[in-house]
């Protein structure tokens, strides 16, 4: 056993040494100090815009949070456009032109997307109407239905009383 344990330790050590030799990709943190703009107002706009843009190679992450190098490129692109004097809408339009609407984390209302936005409110209205009708019926139902047993229930009651 000890021999095997030694072997395992050696293997681990070997793996560690090998790993030290190769260059591991460090966890590049989302927004880097060197990317940030000197103008705080412009930088704040860049951050706000970044939060609504999707990192295209990531899974459901915005470019502001993402560690991917593509996200960094996009962040730099956003800042470049802002420095060039684009408005927020122009920056977004620029990115949508290049990468399609996939880049938008907040879908537009264009085309069939209105259904996505309206789905919740529509169902809510429908549910309130249905629920309202149900409550009205309940408040008007004859309380007499509460008393009295159905024939099956009577039979069952007799069964229980006999048993």
């Amino acid at each position, binding site marked *: 056993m000890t021999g095997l344990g030694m072997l*395992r330790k050696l*293997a*681990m050590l070997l*793996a*560690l040494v*090998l*790993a*030290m030799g190769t260059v*591991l*990709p*460090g*966890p*590049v*943190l*989302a*927004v*880097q*100090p060197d990317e*940030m703009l000197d103008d705080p107002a412009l930088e704040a706009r860049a951050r706000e815009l970044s*939060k*609504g843009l*999707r990192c295209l190679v990531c*899974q*459901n*992450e*915005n470019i502001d*949070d993402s560690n991917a190098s593509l996200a960094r490129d996009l962040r730099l692109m956003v800042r470049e456009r802002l420095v060039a004097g684009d408005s927020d809408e122009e920056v977004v339009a620029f990115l949508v032109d290049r990468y*399609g*609407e*996939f*880049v*938008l*984390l*907040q*879908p537009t209302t264009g*085309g*069939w*997307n209105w259904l*996505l*936005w309206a*789905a*919740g409110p529509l*169902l*809510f209205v429908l*549910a*309130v109407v249905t*629920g309202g009708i*149900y*409550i*009205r019926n*309940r*408040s008007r*139902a*004859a*309380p007499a*239905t*509460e008393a009295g047993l159905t024939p099956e229930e009577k039979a069952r009651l007799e069964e229980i009383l006999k048993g």
Partner: protein
Amino acid sequence: MITELGHFALILAFLVACVQAVVPMVGAQKRWPGWMAVAEPAATAQFLLVLLSFAALTHAFVTSDFSLRLVVMNSHSAKPMLYKISGVWGNHEGSMLLWVLILALFGAMAAWFGGNLPPSLRARVLGIQAMVGVAFYAFILFTSNPFLRLAVPPFDGQDLNPLLQDPGLAFHPPFLYLGYVGLSICFSFAAAALIEGRVDAAWGRWVRPWTLLSWVFLTIGIALGSWWAYYELGWGGFWFWDPVENASFMPWLLAAALLHSAIVVEKREALKSWTILLAILAFSFSLIGTFIVRSGVLTSVHAFATDPERGVFILAILVIFTGGSLTLYAARAGVMQAKGVFGVVSRESALVANNILLAVACFVVFVGTLWPLVAEMLFQRKLSVGAPFFNMAFTPFMVLLGLLLPIGSMLSWKRGKLGRIFRQLVPAMLLALAVAGLFWTIQTGRSLMGPIGLALGTWLVAGSVTDILSRIGQSRDYRRLLRLPRADWGKAVAHAGLGVCMAGVAGLMAWQQEDIRVAQLGEPFTVGAYEIELQDVQRVQGPNYFSTMGEVAVREDGREIAHLYPEKRDYPVAKMPTTEAAIDYRFLRDVYVVIGDQQTAGGWTMRVYIKPLANWIWGGAILMALGGLLSLSDRRFRVAAGARKTVPAKGVPAE
């Protein structure tokens, strides 16, 4: 050898489940007591067999048996013991085994504690539970067998994904599965009741504890996952509206709706067919969640083992059970007649409103999650639906829920008086408005979210206190508080927990402060009210990783209040880096420190966040779970559960 035994036990469990799915159902139809009685020992046997199978797989992980394919793929001999064990469910095959283990556990629990159920109902519940089991045993054995051996075992394993090597995440899946799969019992009860054609107050009373239990587990599971994301992913996000998160959130919302509507069934014999539908939907959403995670149809951070064959299999299970039960529902729902009569202003109506809001909120999440798929298939549009959509479309319903909750929870059954309740709630209302006003004036950024969220939280907490105090009436005899039913306490605690959680979410999102910079050793800088100094950076070696560990002092008014050690780890075997944020947890705020790369010009990248009220999010979740447990321990459930002690009380076996 042990591995083969485990494999064999799993096959046996599959066969037992086949028997359990057929014999009791036929028995219940033909009224043959002997056939019905098969269900109970079968459920116990099934559970013991899966337990054996799970223990065998755990043994293989613990002893690092690298002749097993699954162990090679997900373990390493140098990995700490905790993660060797959690590695059992940190992968597709093992997590499916945990899934069926919990399914069998709930089946067995229904058999053990179901002594007071009518025999035919119990036989049907266990039969349907076994049908679900059969489907998933088949899924595991034919597409995802964890017990496959390798002809040539390698020297060592490939290690578990380092992100999963974390205490928070070690226990996140079991809790989540306990919740997901626990809803299967509610589903079985609903389907059985449809076959029986009978839903009454007793049915509501039997179903409610199972719903509560599942909901408590889901709450804990989701909170653990969210807390993990907060401290592990490196920027303190706690919820991403990721498809897989949504997959666990949807059953949670529906379970919350179900446990409220089951009260109406139990107390007032109304809302019956809706409650049945909810029970079916809640479990169907668990299945949808499983489908989303395993099929890879929606790409997500969580998706593992994405495989079309498996996806199709789970889709088939989903279609059969959801479709089958909904067909049954359509055919039989008319049989159920509401009995309770109630006024427009009543607790019943308030609970209808609760159900509407929770169900619609769930629907919004559902549509948002699946929309990218729909848009691509029907309109050839590749688009994303992310956090901004959900925040906008989902939040209004939650705000409305929070506004109505304290009023609705105090209305009396049958016929309530709004005027009286408003008078009682005036102090809570004033307090909430005062809080909103206070934070509106003192905050710097003029966002409405913070004040509204805090006011809602105050309103909910103060409303819960008012509710509890109203129970002792005018007597001011506070000893009576202790004698109140635990369900009342559970209700107040859980509702207050929701308030705390809402306040936390709003506070964190509205008032978070962030600082990104290159920090030089020994040069302090200020973030908000704090002074931060990077004092030292060292290379440290862990059991299966290297670490770059910073030493950071946090000062407030010149006095050191915390010493933090943020880390950046490299896992050489899994070839993956992770960030380990260092957090100074306080009641009102967290200071969250992350260290990044060394800069060539000297210094280290550092991100510092001040996160106000962050702990309230999980504190609120804990309160909600605690409320659920208090309610679960209420006398009327214990009486219902122990009414006929045919089984010696031995509790839930430890796993």
